[in-house]
């Protein structure tokens, strides 16, 4: 506690140091938008030509605020893919300036002399951050013709795909459940469709994606490894636009337009796969009756009330339906709803109030010979958030806020028909209340040092009603019930209070080169239990409790950032080391499903992850793209597994390489290619074998003592922009997945026949060509 007091005190001191003004200053503020459709631009650089250090960038709502001395200034705004904006202003009082920016083609960007401020990646304090521009990735080849932001981010350094047929990803050695995925601020609990082949994010409805690799600012919290902050489009404020795509197994349609021109807009975007329609054409009667599809719907509307208030309502609803001949079915999906109110108190104080609802649920139906059984489960959040941004002056921005979430966990409700031989029952529900407060300060010291530091204080409480058991941790009675408590409604069982300091800073060597360093602590109170590698809809979230402590991660990172050739190239090297505490795993042979005493089967351990990430990107010109390479190690140690020996976590991959290249053959033709290579996952193979009841059984020794063969694959794509006019756009995209037909093992099985035993690998996709037609009018 003592340490924390000092920490808070020092924040106050630094704040005070900035309150001395020498000259009359005024504030210029407003929004930055795309001229074509009125979409706010997130993270655009706003600065003055006269003094480049007088700069800021737009927030998540496109708002900026810049405090400058009285007099003449040239306000410039820069954003990748847009023409440089410049306007001379005479500042004699506070000024409101809304800016609209026109887009530019890739070729134009190469010719144009780029503004000097296009180096925010070098100068900004934030490190371990990646932004994905949806337009930039549209030419990357994809499987099944569905652009997928979660697949694309795995091509970046430090982020590893969890494998084929899996929408999960690992960031700097963290598990797939240690990523906080936010869609318009609402957490998405299961980001995959069709058991992992697609992510739930329809790229037509997405404006912007920002990913923080563990060094997240204090405003985010709740997961150890990363934050993926996805913002939906607002919808065109200018005119009605229809966008869509027709692919081999999925199609999508988006409608957007103004509610009242330049005041409010809406967007509705839908998507459905129809692989099951093809199944209907088959002769096999069982396949005809197989259900296999998903759909999702993104909705958003916003309206500006007066000059200083704006309301946003957005929602997502997605569902997967899988069924087998009416005998077995599973239906699962997420629903999120967000209502936001932006209020500008004055030109320097921006506020956003958010109400969020998030729900992930699944339902399994079984019909076996007339016995009907339904199993339902859900995780539901009610969440309220208040975020304030105070632009003290050009060199100081303060953010503070609070958040409160009420979680409800329904692990399983079993409804059985009469005479089915099963009781209708329910696994005990759990309730938890999570609260957080944060304060964060972004400060520039001249043009030498930028620093972003803050503190997040998080509290997590498991609340009643319910009966809670304590499980013994000693080696003799491990997993046995040692105590139980019955609690009434809204009574607290166990609370955890954690301080999460975060600091990130850049030391600017010159305009093109900088060194950055950061430290952050993250705490996670929701834990995902999964006994399959791939994302399964029945994976179970559990809260921290009397038996399960909050997971904690401390990460330090150091990086060198450099831009060269007039910001045409962007390069970086980052090294990190991460300590993980209270990591959750389960005992060998734990039963995860239908288990009321799941906590008895859990083990607590520690982890460590370290690595180096290399990144080189060419942003402009006919040939553009990037190369990324990560060298890393990720290990875990659990008292109950191999006596605490450090073993490679399944996501440990020594080498991970991605190359993404796009080439404009002609303004209408773009050819693209990606190549990925990574060390095979750490796995457990048998050492010996033995015979039981005439069957050969494999015998295992050390956990994760082996490696799968290395994974590598090349995809190519060709995009033909058939029409590109102001009114109409249409394009054809041909993608070939796994073009050199590498048989990457998806599963390795150990089999026996006759007198011999052997290992057999199965590869999922040898080669998958897809054609997609995209349009916009």
């Amino acid at each position, binding site marked *: 506690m003592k340490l924390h007091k000092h920490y808070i005190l020092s924040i106050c001191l630094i704040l005070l140091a900035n309150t001395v003004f020498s000259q009359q200053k005024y504030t210029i503020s407003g929004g930055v938008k795309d001229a074509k459709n009125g979409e706010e631009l997130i993270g655009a650089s706003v600065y003055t030509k006269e003094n480049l250090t007088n700069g800021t960038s737009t927030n998540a709502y496109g708002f900026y605020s810049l405090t400058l001395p009285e007099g003449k200034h040239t306000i410039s705004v820069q954003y990748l893919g847009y023409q440089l904006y410049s306007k001379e202003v005479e500042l004699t009082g506070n000024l409101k300036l809304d800016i609209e920016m026109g887009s530019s083609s890739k070729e134009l960007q190469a010719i144009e002399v780029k503004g000097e401020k296009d180096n925010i990646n070098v100068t900004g304090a934030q490190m371990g951050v990646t932004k994905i521009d949806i337009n930039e990735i549209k030419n990357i080849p994809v499987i099944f013709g569905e652009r997928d932001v979660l697949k694309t981010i795995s091509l970046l350094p430090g982020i590893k795909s969890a*494998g084929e*047929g899996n929408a999960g990803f690992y960031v700097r050695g963290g598990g797939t459940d240690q990523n906080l995925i936010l869609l318009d601020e609402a957490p998405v609990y299961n980001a995959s469709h069709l058991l992992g082949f697609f992510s739930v994010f329809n790229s037509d409805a997405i404006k912007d994606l920002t990913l923080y690799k563990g060094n997240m600012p204090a405003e985010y919290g709740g997961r150890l490894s990363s934050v993926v902050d996805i913002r939906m489009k607002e919808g065109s404020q200018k005119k009605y636009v229809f966008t869509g795509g027709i692919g081999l*197994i999925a199609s999508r349609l988006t409608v957007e337009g103004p509610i009242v021109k330049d005041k409010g807009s809406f967007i509705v975007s839908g998507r459905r796969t129809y*692989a099951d329609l*093809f*199944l209907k054409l088959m002769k*096999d009667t*069982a396949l005809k009756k*197989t259900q*296999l599809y998903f759909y999702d719907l993104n909705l958003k509307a916003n309206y500006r009330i007066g000059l200083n208030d704006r309301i946003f309502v957005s929602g997502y609803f997605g569902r997967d339906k*899988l069924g087998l*001949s009416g*005998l077995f079915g599973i239906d699962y999906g997420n629903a999120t709803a967000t209502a936001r109110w932006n209020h500008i108190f004055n030109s320097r104080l921006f506020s956003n109030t958010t109400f969020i609802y998030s729900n992930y649920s699944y339902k*399994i139906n079984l019909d*076996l010979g007339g*016995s009907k059984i339904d199993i339902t489960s859900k995780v539901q959040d009610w969440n309220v958030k208040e975020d304030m941004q105070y632009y003290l002056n050009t060199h100081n921005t303060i953010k503070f806020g609070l958040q409160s979430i009420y979680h409800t966990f329904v692990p399983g409700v079993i409804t059985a028909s009469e005479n*089915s*031989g099963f*009781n209708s*029952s329910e696994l005990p529900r759990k309730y938890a209340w999570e609260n957080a407060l944060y304060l964060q300060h972004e400060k520039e010291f001249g043009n030498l040092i930028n620093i972003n530091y803050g503190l997040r204080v998080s509290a997590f409480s498991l609340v009643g009603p319910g009966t809670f058991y304590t499980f013994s941790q000693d080696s003799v009675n491990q997993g046995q019930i040692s105590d139980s408590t019955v609690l009434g409604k809204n009574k607290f069982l166990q609370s955890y209070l954690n301080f999460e300091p975060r600091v990130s800073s850049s030391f600017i060597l010159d305009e093109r080169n900088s060194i950055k360093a950061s430290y952050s602590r993250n705490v996670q109170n929701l834990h995902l239990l999964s006994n*399959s*590698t*791939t994302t*399964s809809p*029945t994976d179970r979230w559990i809260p921290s409790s009397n038996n399960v402590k909050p997971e904690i991660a401390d990460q330090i990172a150091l990086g060198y950032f450099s831009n060269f050739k007039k910001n045409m190239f962007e390069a970086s090297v980052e090294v990190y080391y991460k300590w993980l505490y209270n990591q959750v795993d389960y005992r*060998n*042979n734990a039963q995860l499903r*239908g288990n009321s005493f799941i906590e008895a089967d859990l083990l607590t351990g520690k982890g460590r992850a370290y690595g180096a990430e290399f990144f080189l990107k060419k942003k402009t010109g006919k040939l553009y793209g990037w190369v990324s390479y990560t060298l890393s190690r990720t290990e875990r140690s659990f008292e109950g597994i191999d006596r605490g020996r450090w073993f490679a976590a399944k996501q440990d991959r020594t080498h991970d390489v991605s190359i993404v290249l796009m080439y404009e053959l002609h303004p209408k033709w773009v050819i693209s290619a990606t190549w990925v290579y990574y060390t095979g*996952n750490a*796995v*457990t*193979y048998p*050492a*010996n*074998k*033995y*015979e*039981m009841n*005439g*069957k*050969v059984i*494999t*015998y*295992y020794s050390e*956990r994760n003592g082996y490696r*799968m063969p290395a994974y590598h694959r090349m995809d190519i794509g060709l995009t033909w922009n058939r029409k590109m006019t102001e009114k109409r756009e249409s394009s054809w995209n041909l993608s070939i997945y796994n073009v050199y037909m590498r*048989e990457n093992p*998806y*599963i*390795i*099985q*150990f089999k*026996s026949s006759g007198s011999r*035993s*052997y*290992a*057999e690998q*199965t*590869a*999922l996709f040898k080669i998958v060509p897809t054609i997609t037609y995209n349009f916009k009018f």
Partner: protein
Amino acid sequence: MKIFNSISYYLIEKLIVFKTLNFKLITLNLIVLAFSSCTKEITLDLKEADIKYVMEADMDDSLGFRMHISLSQPYYNDNTFPVITDAAVTLSDNEGNSRNIAHSGDGWYKDSTFKTVVGRTYTLKVVGKDVEYIASSTVRPTIGIGYIVAQKFNFGGGNDGPIRVLQLWYQDPAGAGDHIRVVVNNKKDPSSASNINLQDDRFNDGLVSQLFLFSGGGDDDGYRIQPGDTVHLSLQTIDKAVYDYFLTLDQISGQGGGFGGGVTPANPTTNWSNAGLGVFNACTVRGRYFVVPD
């Protein structure tokens, strides 16, 4: 079209892996067909572990006691497992009865007169060359067979007509903590014997309960029952430790390396000390013959 086949089969396969509750859905033969082009044998460099005793010991109120002892072998050796013929085996109960069991040939140790009594705890001790293993098992109150039905399902491969799956009904005694195991033998094809049909009573305590019996015990590509077949069912009432052993054995049967290499396989939890392999199962058993109707 092939790709759609692959995807749908893949998904169906994934569904089957859910094994929700204690159900196990029949894997479609089609899955194998769809993947055949992408499946190949690979050679792995495997480290060898210590050779251990494998002790399959069963004891019930009908056949008495029998145990088979063999040795584990390196993975890439031939599937011949040497047997132990000179172990000192002692079986005792908590009522003071104790017997030494002699080797009766081919790795078997038998005593058909030492039968189980409900409520007693039996302790089995095996002493071999430089090794000693001990296991205990308690006999639970007997559960009887109610009746047997052959359910017809129109799973995939519908052109071959419906698939028949045996469904066993029984009365679960009131009070949680009962575990059953059913062994199915088909006279027509003894190799299709299924040993691991398990159910606890977490979801069916005190009810007239059902259990589907899948042939093949983890290997679902084998023989399936046909009308006219005579099958024999034995219902064992087993204790929790034995149940856990078979449940975890079932999870690794025919598996390994895991899906995408991630489901960490582990050795079954056993009631043998010293990490011996196999299990000592002292139980009661009820058997019945059943002729599969058309």
